[in-house]
């Protein structure tokens, strides 16, 4: 490479030792399997030419396959199963509608998510309404529209009861529970705790109210749970609680909702083994849940009563591997400690998940040169904006494109709007065509919510909007000089 003075570009001298057994990773050229020149069947070059960089690319086929595979596995073993698509995982409208077309209901946790599901045309009866912050107004709407209300705390229960009284109807409710499975950190801030007796008390309050009816139990034991037995324990505890309630009160539970939390094929930071080795198969989770469920509902079968409906709210396992981020190199440098570094046009602003995953990142074309430990930075003026702290890559140059894998969960919802426009989100349709499913932001999107009071309409008092010089008497009194 030559600079403008026709000299080779300076880089401090550096030596990279090759590691035994990893010789292929450190040769002159990156391994072939580390190159991905098409994304979901579409050439990377074409995608970037058409939609810009960075760009999120989503596969309709992969989403549909993921949902079908998990649903089929549950249905084969239990039958009466509903998937609630956890909107917060990725609420891009097209993605939600793919899920709904596959039969998944909407699992929403806020007024915004509820309204979005309704806007998309999801009927209230197919909405599961979780979350700790539901206003009275949205509860009134959700109840009128027949949504399933999952109650988080006593105040919410009282609000629902007051709405039921005003409507003169009986409102069915589900209680969100929390408890210790012994496998995961208990999420005790959500719902009612079983061990302390809160959950039983809440159930009793519902049973005593002529305006409420307890029809469901829900819990969500955490996310990216690597131990299927945690679910067996969850279901066992929920069934025991259900049986206890049904034995003591006039209650019949119609649905058990086990929440989400199945892992995706991503590499969690701090987990030594690669995902192929550390992440159990989805069928292990399905077996754990359904076996515990069959055991826990034996008492129902014995008395010839119907089994409860099973609801699961899997998010990341359904969509993570169905989306990639294509991002381009905008600059390269050698850090003071000798490591190579690259600045990318997409960073932690778009990849919130890079805080907890070491995302699989591949080259999209062959690049010659010694493979070295490299740090990948994003475009933010923030030290925390690191996409990968350490990855072995050949020398990248301006314009090279990288494919960040498994980014479909929680990025299109938790991305942050900080100094950059958010880019296009593209869907590769099942027939291989592609289209934008969320347009890149521009200045009008970014400023549309801003309001300028009349005295702040112009930035400099001595220059008018038309560019002419103003004569300023005092702030607030401006006269244009013609």
């Amino acid at each position, binding site marked *: 490479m030559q*600079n403008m*003075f026709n*000299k*080779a*570009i*300076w*880089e*401090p*001298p*550096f*030596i*990279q*030792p*090759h590691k035994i057994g990893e*010789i292929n990773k*450190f040769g*002159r050229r990156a391994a072939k399997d580390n190159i991905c020149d098409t994304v979901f069947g579409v050439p990377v070059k074409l995608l970037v030419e058409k939609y810009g960089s960075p760009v999120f690319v989503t596969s309709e086929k992969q989403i549909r396959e993921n949902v079908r595979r998990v649903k089929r596995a549950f249905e084969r073993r239990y039958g009466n199963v509903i998937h609630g698509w956890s909107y917060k995982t990725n609420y891009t409208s097209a993605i939600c509608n793919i899920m709904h077309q596959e039969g998944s209901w909407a699992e929403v946790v806020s007024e915004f998510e509820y309204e979005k599901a309704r806007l998309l045309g999801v009927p209230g009866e197919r909405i599961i309404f979780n979350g700790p912050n539901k206003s009275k107004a949205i509860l009134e709407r959700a109840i009128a529209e027949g949504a399933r209300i999952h109650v988080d705390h006593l105040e919410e229960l009282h609000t629902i009861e007051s709405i039921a009284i005003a409507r003169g109807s009986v409102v069915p409710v589900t209680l969100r529970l929390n408890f210790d499975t012994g496998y995961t950190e208990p999420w005790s801030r959500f719902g009612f705790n079983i061990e302390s007796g809160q959950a039983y008390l809440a159930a009793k309050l519902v049973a005593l109210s002529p305006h409420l009816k307890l029809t469901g139990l829900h819990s969500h034991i955490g996310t990216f749970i690597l131990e299927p037995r945690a679910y067996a324990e969850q279901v066992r505890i929920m069934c025991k609680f259900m049986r206890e309630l049904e034995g003591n009160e006039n209650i019949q539970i119609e649905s058990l909702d086990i929440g989400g939390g199945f892992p995706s094929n991503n590499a969690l930071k701090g987990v030594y083994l690669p995902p192929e080795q550390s992440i159990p198969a989805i069928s292990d989770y399905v077996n754990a849940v359904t076996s515990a469920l069959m055991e826990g509902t034996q008492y129902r079968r014995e008395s010839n009563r119907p089994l409860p409906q099973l609801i699961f709210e899997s998010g990341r396992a359904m969509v993570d591997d169905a989306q990639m981020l294509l991002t381009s190199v905008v600059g390269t440098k050698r850090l003071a400690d*000798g490591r190579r570094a690259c600045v990318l046009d997409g960073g932690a602003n778009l990849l919130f998940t890079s805080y907890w995953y070491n995302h699989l990142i591949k080259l999209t074309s062959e690049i010659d040169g*010694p*493979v*070295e430990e490299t740090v990948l930075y994003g475009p933010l003026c923030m030290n925390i904006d690191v996409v990968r702290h350490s990855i072995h890559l050949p020398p990248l140059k301006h314009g090279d494109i990288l494919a960040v894998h498994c980014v479909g969960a929680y990025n299109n919802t938790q991305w942050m709007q900080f100094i950059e426009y958010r880019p296009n989100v593209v869907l590769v349709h099942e027939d291989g065509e592609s289209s934008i499913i969320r347009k890149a932001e521009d200045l009008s999107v970014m400023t549309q919510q801003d309001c300028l009071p009349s005295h702040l309409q112009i930035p400099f008092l001595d220059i008018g909007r038309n560019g002419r010089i103003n004569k300023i008497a005092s702030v607030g009194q401006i006269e244009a000089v013609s």
Partner: protein
Amino acid sequence: MEDATVSSPCRPERLQKLAVSDTGFVFDPQTGQSFTLNSTGLMSLNLLKKGTTVENTAACLAREYGVSVEVASSSLEAFLVQFGRYL
């Protein structure tokens, strides 16, 4: 050897044993270890192998890459310390 500041692992005799390709691949037959050099590292090693002093090597780097002699010397020193750890 003219230059006493060259650290001992980087003696020309030791460096001479290294097989260096013109693309920067280095093989050390004494340890079986292999390395990759960047372009400035390659230029430095080739000069040092020929017995060029550290001072003159830095001057060549400075001329070739259009940086000051101070920048080239301090980088070369750091490089030799790093190299010395592997030999």
